C-alpha cells in the first residue's frame, strides 16, 4: 500500500518501475497467504520479473524523468474520492474474508472440489479447472496472448541487425562474477521450467508459469551475455512458428475431439478411459499454452531489446 503511494509520488520513472516490481512481489506474497499458490507463482514470475524488464526496456527507449504535472490534481482527486466512497459503500455488503457461505463457494465450486479429482484425474484443482472445465476460456486467453504478441510485432518488429555485438552486455564492463553465476543459474531455471510444466497436474504450476520461467532464462542470458546473444540460440523466426504451434496444439486437441464425435475440447475422446483421456488432454493443452506463452514473451523482449539497439 505504502509502496503504491510512493510509486505515485515519485517522478523518477526508473524508481517507479522498480517499486512496481516490489509491489508485484508483495502481492504475490499476499496471494500465498490467501491459499492461492498457483496465482502467487504466476504473479511472482510475471509481475516481478517480466513486466519490470519490459518497463525498463521501454524507459530506455523513452525518457527517465516525468515532467512536472502542470494541471490541477484537485478535480482528479474529487473524482477518485467519489468513486472510492461508492466502492467502500458497496464493499460493506460483501461477505467477509473466508466466509463459507459466500456466493463464490456455492455455485460450481463444490462440484470442482468434490468431483475434480475423480473426473479429471489430477490433484491440482486449479490445473483441472483451467484446462478441462474452463478449457474454452483458457483457449481464448491463449489466443489473446498470441494476438498481443502479433500486435507488438506489428508495432515494433524485430530488426535483423547485422551489428550483433555478442561480447557487449547490457550491464557494461566485464562482469566475471555475474557471468559465472548466470552460467550456473540458467540450466537450473530451464530445468525448473520443465518441472513446472509437467508437474503442474500434481503441484502448483502449469503451462502459463512454465512458459514465463523458460523465457526468463533466455532474457537473463541475453542481458548478461550481450544483446543478441539469446537470438543466436533461439532465432526470432523459430519463435514466430513456435507461438503459432502452441496455439495450434491447443486448437488441434479440440478439433481432434470434435472429429472423434465429442464436443470441442472434450478430452475424454483422447483415450478409451475417460479419466486417462482427460489427463492426456490437459497435459497436451498445457504444453500448447507453455509453448505459446514462452515464445510470445521472448518475442516481445526481442522486440524491445532490438529497438534499443537500433535507435541508440
Amino acid at each position, binding site marked *: 500500500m505504502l509502496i503504491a503511494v510512493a510509486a505515485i509520488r515519485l517522478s523518477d520513472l526508473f524508481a517507479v518501475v522498480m517499486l*512496481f516490481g516490489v509491489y508485484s512481489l508483495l502481492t504475490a506474497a499476499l496471494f500465498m497467504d490467501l491459499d*492461492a*499458490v498457483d496465482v502467487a507463482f504466476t504473479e511472482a514470475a510475471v509481475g516481478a520479473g*517480466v513486466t519490470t524488464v519490459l518497463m525498463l526496456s521501454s524507459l530506455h527507449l523513452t525518457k527517465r524523468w516525468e515532467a512536472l504535472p502542470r494541471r490541477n490534481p484537485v478535480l482528479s482527486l474529487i473524482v477518485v474520492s467519489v468513486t472510492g466512497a461508492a466502492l467502500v459503500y458497496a*464493499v460493506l455488503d460483501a461477505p467477509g*474474508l473466508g466466509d463459507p457461505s459466500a456466493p463464490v463457494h456455492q455455485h460450481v465450486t463444490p462440484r470442482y472440489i468434490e468431483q475434480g479429482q475423480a473426473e479429471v484425474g489430477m490433484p491440482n484443482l486449479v490445473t483441472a479447472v483451467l484446462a478441462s472445465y474452463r478449457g474454452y476460456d483458457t483457449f481464448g486467453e491463449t489466443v489473446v496472448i498470441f494476438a498481443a504478441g502479433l500486435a507488438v510485432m506489428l508495432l515494433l518488429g524485430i530488426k535483423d541487425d547485422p551489428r550483433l555485438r555478442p561480447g557487449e552486455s547490457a550491464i557494461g564492463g566485464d562482469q566475471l562474477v555475474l557471468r559465472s553465476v548466470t552460467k550456473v543459474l540458467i540450466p537450473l531455471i530451464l530445468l525448473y521450467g520443465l518441472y513446472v510444466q509437467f508437474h503442474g497436474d500434481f503441484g502448483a504450476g502449469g503451462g502459463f508459469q512454465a512458459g514465463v520461467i523458460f523465457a526468463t532464462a533466455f532474457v537473463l542470458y541475453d542481458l548478461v551475455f550481450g544483446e543478441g546473444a539469446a537470438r543466436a540460440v533461439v532465432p526470432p523466426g523459430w519463435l514466430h512458428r513456435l507461438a503459432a504451434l502452441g496455439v495450434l496444439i491447443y486448437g488441434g486437441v479440440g478439433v481432434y475431439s470434435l472429429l472423434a464425435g465429442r464436443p470441442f475440447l472434450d478430452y475424454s475422446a483422447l483415450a478409451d478411459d475417460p479419466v486417462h483421456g482427460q489427463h492426456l488432454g490437459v497435459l497436451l493443452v498445457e504444453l500448447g499454452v507453455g509453448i505459446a506463452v514462452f515464445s510470445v514473451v521472448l518475442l516481445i523482449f526481442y522486440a524491445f531489446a532490438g529497438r534499443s539497439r537500433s535507435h541508440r
Partner: protein
Amino acid sequence: MTGMPGLFNYLIVVFLMMAGFYVVIAHGNLVKKLVGLGLFQASVFILYITMGNLSGGQAPIVVEGVTAYSSPLPHVLILTAIVVGVATAAVGLALVVRIHEAYGSVEEDEIHAMDLSDDKSSMDARAADDRDAGQ
C-alpha cells in the same frame, strides 16, 4: 486463516484501485499511466483471490484427509488474467515507444499541443492512438 478481519482486504482493494485510477487520470506521462493501470489491475486480482479464500481451507491441491479447499475458480481466472495482463501491457508499452519515436515525448500535454498545431484531420487519428496508449 490469515487472521485479518472480514472486510479489511476489500478496503485495501478499494484504496489500491483508486490509487491506480488516480494515476491514470491525473498524470500525463504515458509510462506512468501504464504503471497506474498495473496498480489497478493488481487490486482486481487481490479482490478475486480474497473472494475465493475459505477460512480453514487449504490451497486447492487435493491431499489425503483435507476436505476444505479455497475455491479454485477465481485462481484460474486470475492466473490467466495476469499473463494476459503482461501481454497487453507489452502492447501498451510498444505503443508508447512508437509515440515517443513519432513525437519525441511521452507527456500527454506536449503530445496534445503538437497535435493542435497539426492539421485537423491527422489530429483526430493521433488523439485516438494517444487514448489507446493511456488506457
